[in-house]
């Protein structure tokens, strides 16, 4: 897509987002939108590391959980309002991702992936057992949110609107940072690392630093998503925020949407939320069967993801148009 087309699409999208809740008042629909936005942030977080840097993590729930716990603990124990807690949660997740990265990046490929899995599972065990920090299996519950005034209006926390606005904002931030990454020098380095890590080192690319910085960005986004989760759902416990299922959902969104694309996570999130929720309704336990099946189907038949395929088709159409124009 050309730069102009992208800016146009982005602006149109942003306007549509802003207009939507003014037109559609149905609370369930808004709730679904909020979920889509949140999952987009999480999918984008995973995509930054998995799609752009080519490092497959099966433990991203750990970063999400750091954000969730940080936000909710800061509010319940230190009285810090969630709208500050969420970015702080992002920072906490980014910060903790650095030692995790330095540890796990010593390994490559599948070894790295398994190490992330081990880290996340260890985190879950710690969260379950370190009661003085995390309240163990009981978790934390927000009963009342603090009052907030914006431009003279008192925010109504019972309405979906403030959460919709925040979620949409976080989603735009995530998508914009992914877009920035793609055209940045770091993004170019990541492409090289993905192609051949040794060759990248040989031409002077500090592969460890590139990966750690990327992980920090990925962690920040995941932490933001986690913080929002705590704020919107008001309940955090180890089973909710540290499950392997959650890590897999993040992988799924990025994969199905399109690894290494900017818009992919949004498409993946829509897919996950709509079809996923339907399956969850129908099946309750074992609903992840849908994720497993679709991951396999996508890798087999559509490895570039839905959005990746769309972009490729668009590029082909564009090339054909140009050729006919020249001829």
């Amino acid at each position, binding site marked *: 897509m050309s730069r102009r087309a992208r800016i146009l699409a982005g602006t149109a999208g942003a306007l549509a987002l802003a207009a939507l809740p003014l037109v559609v008042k149905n609370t369930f629909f808004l709730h679904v939108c909020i979920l889509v936005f949140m999952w987009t942030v999480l999918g984008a977080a995973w995509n930054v590391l998995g799609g752009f840097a080519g490092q497959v993590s099966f433990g991203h729930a750990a970063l999400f959980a750091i954000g969730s716990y940080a936000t909710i603990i800061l509010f319940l124990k230190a009285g810090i309002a969630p709208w500050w807690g969420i970015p702080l949660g992002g920072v906490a997740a980014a910060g903790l991702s650095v030692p995790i990265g330095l540890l796990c990046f010593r390994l490559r490929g599948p070894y790295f992936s398994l190490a992330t899995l081990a880290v996340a*599972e260890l985190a879950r065990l710690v969260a379950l057992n370190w009661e003085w920090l995390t309240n163990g299996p009981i978790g934390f519950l927000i009963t009342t949110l603090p009052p907030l005034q914006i431009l003279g209006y008192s925010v109504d926390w019972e309405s979906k609107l403030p959460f919709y606005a925040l979620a949409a904002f976080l989603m735009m931030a995530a998508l914009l940072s992914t877009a920035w990454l793609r055209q940045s020098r770091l993004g170019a380095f990541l492409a090289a690392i993905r192609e051949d890590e040794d060759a990248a080192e040989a031409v002077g690319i500090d592969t460890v630093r590139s990966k750690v910085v990327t992980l920090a960005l990925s962690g920040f986004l995941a932490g933001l998503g986690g913080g929002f989760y705590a704020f919107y759902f008001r309940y955090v416990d180890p089973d909710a925020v540290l499950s392997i299922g959650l890590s897999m959902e993040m992988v799924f969104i990025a994969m199905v949407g399109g690894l290494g694309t900017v818009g992919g996570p949004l498409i993946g999130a829509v897919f996950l939320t709509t079809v996923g929720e339907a399956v969850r309704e129908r099946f309750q336990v074992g609903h992840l069967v849908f994720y497993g099946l679709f*991951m396999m189907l996508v*890798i087999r038949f559509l490895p570039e993801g839905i959005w990746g395929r769309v972009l490729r088709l668009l590029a082909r159409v564009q090339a054909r148009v140009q050729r006919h124009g020249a001829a």
Partner: protein
Amino acid sequence: METFVQSLVSGVLMGALYAMIGIGLTVIFGVMRIINLAHGEMVMVGMFGAFWSQTLWGLDPFLSILLWAPVMFVGGMLLYRFLLRKIIPGGELNTLLYTAGLSLLVANLALLAWTGDYRTITLAYTQAPMRPLGIAVPGALAIGFGVAVVVTVALWLFLGRTDMGRAIRATSQNPEAAVLMGVDVERVAVVAFGLGTALAGAAGVLLAPSLYLYPTVGELLIVKSFVIVVLGGLGSVPGAIAGGLLLGVAESLGAVYVSSTYKDGIGYVIFLLVLLYRPSGLFGVGKR
């Protein structure tokens, strides 16, 4: 002292079964260089196979290995031939994610079919633990250990004495040279995958009378399998045996002397430590 010996013994018994799981994984990796994230689910399938064949047909679980091992062998071959083979050319990342998807699929199909309730197998003849030399040895685990030893010896003979076994070892050491020597590498891959799956399933059958059975146990087992395989060196069968025993003993001693809640965490910590300090395994067999 008695506690120490007790937990050492349990650790070794359990470790042998872990080792079987690890051997299955290491054979697959050695031949095809793929990490099968669904390996834990293969064990789970074996476990439930034993459970259902006992519940529905009254088949003794230890005898049912004669049924389930061949079934899983064939199943593994079909899985490779019809699903995995097309994915492998797409690269390591894709294969990894594909087997992750497969693992999710199998575990959740099991959840759908059998619910998440914990199941157990009780056997009349192992209710009271045996007490050789005054050490309480859980009967089911001891029998499982015995069968595991038999299976491992049989495998050893297979790899050492038969043509296919040698072909597997050759391909594992150097696939290009194996091709040049006339080995049908594709066929070896199919057999190896079947073998690895059968070993996982067999281990599941043998473990079934000793553990709680639930469909998502694979999540736990896959990390343990990798601890074992990495400890012993990827692709090495003797390494997997040693790794399995080591993990079994470490967990057992850890549960008694460190903390029983973090018992499963021991595997994760060992995994991370080994990967950090000795990625080629304790025996330096080497990653390729």
